[in-house]
C-alpha cells in the first residue's frame, strides 16, 4: 500500500471510532440514569474533615437511609472538599449535578439572601433559644426560602458559636478589635461586624489560614471550638476569647431538580433519616466542643470569658442597617421566639 492509502485508512478509522462513540452516548446515558432495578444513588458534598461531628452525622444519615429503604437508596458522602468548595457544590446542586450539599449558612447567603440573618451577632439568647428557632416556624421558613433558587433545605446542624482567637493580644473588650486584622467568613454580614468594631476584616481561604496566622499576616481569626482544635490553629493562636458573637448553623440542602424526581416514599425516608441525624449530631457536637476546649487548654492556650453584653452593645448598630428589610424582619421574629 502506498502512503496515501495508509494515511486515509488511519484517518478513516479515527473518524469512524469518534462517530461510533458519539452515537453510543445516548445509550450510555440512559443506562446510568435508569439504573438496574431502580436503585438510587445520591451524592453529598461538603468541605469538613472526616473526624468532624457533621461528617459522622451524615454517615449516620446514610446508614439510616439505607436501613429505611432496605438498601434501595444509597447516600455517598464526599468530605474534605473533594467535590469542590461550598459555593461550587451549591451551584452543582442547583443544576442537578449533585444531589446534596452540607454548607455553612454563611456560604448560602449569596444564593438565599434570608440566610444572612444568621450572620447577625447575638441574635440568639442562648443555645436553647437557638434550637427553638431552628426547629420552629422561622427556621422552617428560612429553609424553604431556598426552593425558588433550586436548593431544597433539609435540616440544620449545630455549628456552635464562633469566638475570636488571636496571636499576641487577647480580645477582652470590643475596643480591643480596633486596628486588628481578623480573618472572617466570606459573607457580607461577617465583614460588616468587624468593620463596625474598627478592625480590618481580611478574607483568607480556610486552607491558607494556618500559614497566614503563623507568618503573622493577620492578628487572629474566629471560629467555634471544634474547628479551632481540628484545624490546629491553636498551635499558633494562643488566646481564645469566648465572646460567642455568632451562631451560624450548618445547613443540609437537596437539589430541587433531583428532589422533584423522587417518589414521595423516598422523600419521606430522606426526611426521616435527616431528622434523626440532627439529634445525633447535636449530641456529638456538644461532646466535641467540650473535648476541644479541654484539649486546647491542655496545649497551653489561654481561654478567656469576656463580658458578652459589652460586645452585644457594640455590635447592636448592625441591626439598624437591616431595619425595614426582609432580614431585619426575620431577625425581629427570631428574637420574639420564647
Amino acid at each position, binding site marked *: 500500500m502506498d502512503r496515501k492509502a495508509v*494515511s486515509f485508512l488511519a484517518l478513516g478509522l479515527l473518524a469512524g471510532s469518534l462517530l461510533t462513540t458519539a452515537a453510543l452516548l445516548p445509550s450510555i446515558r440512559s443506562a446510568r440514569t435508569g439504573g438496574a432495578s431502580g436503585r438510587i444513588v445520591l451524592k453529598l458534598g461538603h468541605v469538613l474533615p472526616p473526624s468532624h461531628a457533621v461528617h459522622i452525622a451524615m454517615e449516620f444519615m446514610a446508614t439510616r437511609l439505607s436501613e429505611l429503604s432496605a438498601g434501595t437508596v444509597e447516600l455517598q458522602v464526599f468530605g474534605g472538599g473533594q467535590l469542590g468548595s461550598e459555593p461550587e457544590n451549591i451551584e452543582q446542586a442547583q443544576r442537578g449535578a449533585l444531589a446534596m450539599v452540607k454548607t455553612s449558612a454563611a456560604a448560602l447567603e449569596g444564593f438565599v439572601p434570608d440566610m444572612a440573618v444568621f450572620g447577625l451577632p447575638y441574635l440568639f439568647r442562648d443555645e436553647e433559644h437557638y434550637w427553638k428557632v431552628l426547629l420552629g416556624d422561622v427556621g422552617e421558613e428560612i429553609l424553604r426560602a431556598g426552593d425558588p433558587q433550586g436548593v431544597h433545605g433539609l435540616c440544620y446542624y449545630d455549628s456552635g458559636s464562633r469566638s475570636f482567637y488571636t496571636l499576641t493580644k487577647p480580645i477582652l473588650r470590643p475596643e480591643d478589635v480596633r486596628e486588628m486584622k481578623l480573618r472572617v467568613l466570606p459573607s457580607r454580614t461577617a465583614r460588616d461586624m468587624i468593620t463596625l468594631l474598627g478592625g480590618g476584616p*481580611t478574607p483568607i481561604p480556610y486552607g491558607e489560614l494556618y500559614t497566614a496566622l503563623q507568618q503573622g499576616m493577620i492578628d487572629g481569626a474566629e471560629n467555634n471550638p471544634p474547628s479551632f482544635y481540628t484545624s490546629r490553629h491553636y498551635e499558633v493562636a494562643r488566646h481564645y476569647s469566648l465572646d460567642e458573637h455568632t451562631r451560624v448553623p450548618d445547613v443540609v440542602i437537596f437539589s430541587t431538580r433531583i428532589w422533584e424526581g423522587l417518589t414521595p416514599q423516598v422523600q419521606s425516608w430522606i426526611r426521616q433519616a435527616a431528622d434523626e441525624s440532627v439529634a445525633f449530631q447535636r449530641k456529638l457536637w456538644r461532646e466535641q466542643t467540650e473535648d476541644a476546649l479541654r484539649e486546647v487548654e491542655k496545649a497551653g492556650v489561654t481561654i478567656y470569658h469576656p463580658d458578652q453584653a459589652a460586645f452585644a452593645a457594640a455590635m447592636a448598630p448592625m441591626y439598624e442597617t437591616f431595619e425595614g428589610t426582609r432580614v431585619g424582619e426575620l431577625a425581629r421574629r427570631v428574637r420574639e421566639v420564647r
Partner: protein
Amino acid sequence: MSVTRGAALAWHGIVRGLEIFTSSLFVALVVVVLWGVVSRYWPGIVPSDWTEELAVYLLVWVSLLGSALTYRSRGHLGVDYFVSHFDPAAQRLTVILVELCVLLFAGFALCYGGYRLVTDTLGSGQLTPVLQWKVGYFYSAVPLSGLFISAFSIEHLLEPAGPPATGAAPAA
C-alpha cells in the same frame, strides 16, 4: 469587492478590540493582586477584601478570551506526530475535521451550554459574597469565548489558500 473589503476591515477591528480588551483585563488583574498584597501589609490601610474575589473572575475572563485568541493564532497544544507522517492530502482533510470538531464543541458546549449557565445563574440571582455583583454576568465569559472560537474556526476553514498543514503551525 468593496463590501467584502469592508467586512474584512470590520472583522479585523473586532479581533484587534478583543486583543486590547483581553490585555487590559490582564493589566487590571496584575494591579488588583498587587493592591491586595500592599493593602494587607501596609500599616494603617484596611486590608482590601474584594481583591481576591475580583482576581478570580479576572483570571477566568483572561483565560477564556485568551484561549480564543490563541486558537486564532493556532497556538494551542496538539499531538501532530502521526498527522505529520500523513500524505499531504490526508493532512488537509485532518485539519478540516479538527476544525469541525472544535466548531461543534465551541457551538454546543461553550455557546449553548454557556448561555444556559448564564441564564440559570442570573435567574437564581446569585451574588458574589463581597462585591455583591451578579455571578451570572461574570459567567458570560463562557458563551463569549465560545462565540469567538466558533468565528475563528470558520475563519480558518475559509482561509483562501486552504488550511495549512498542521506541522507548519507557528508555535506561539
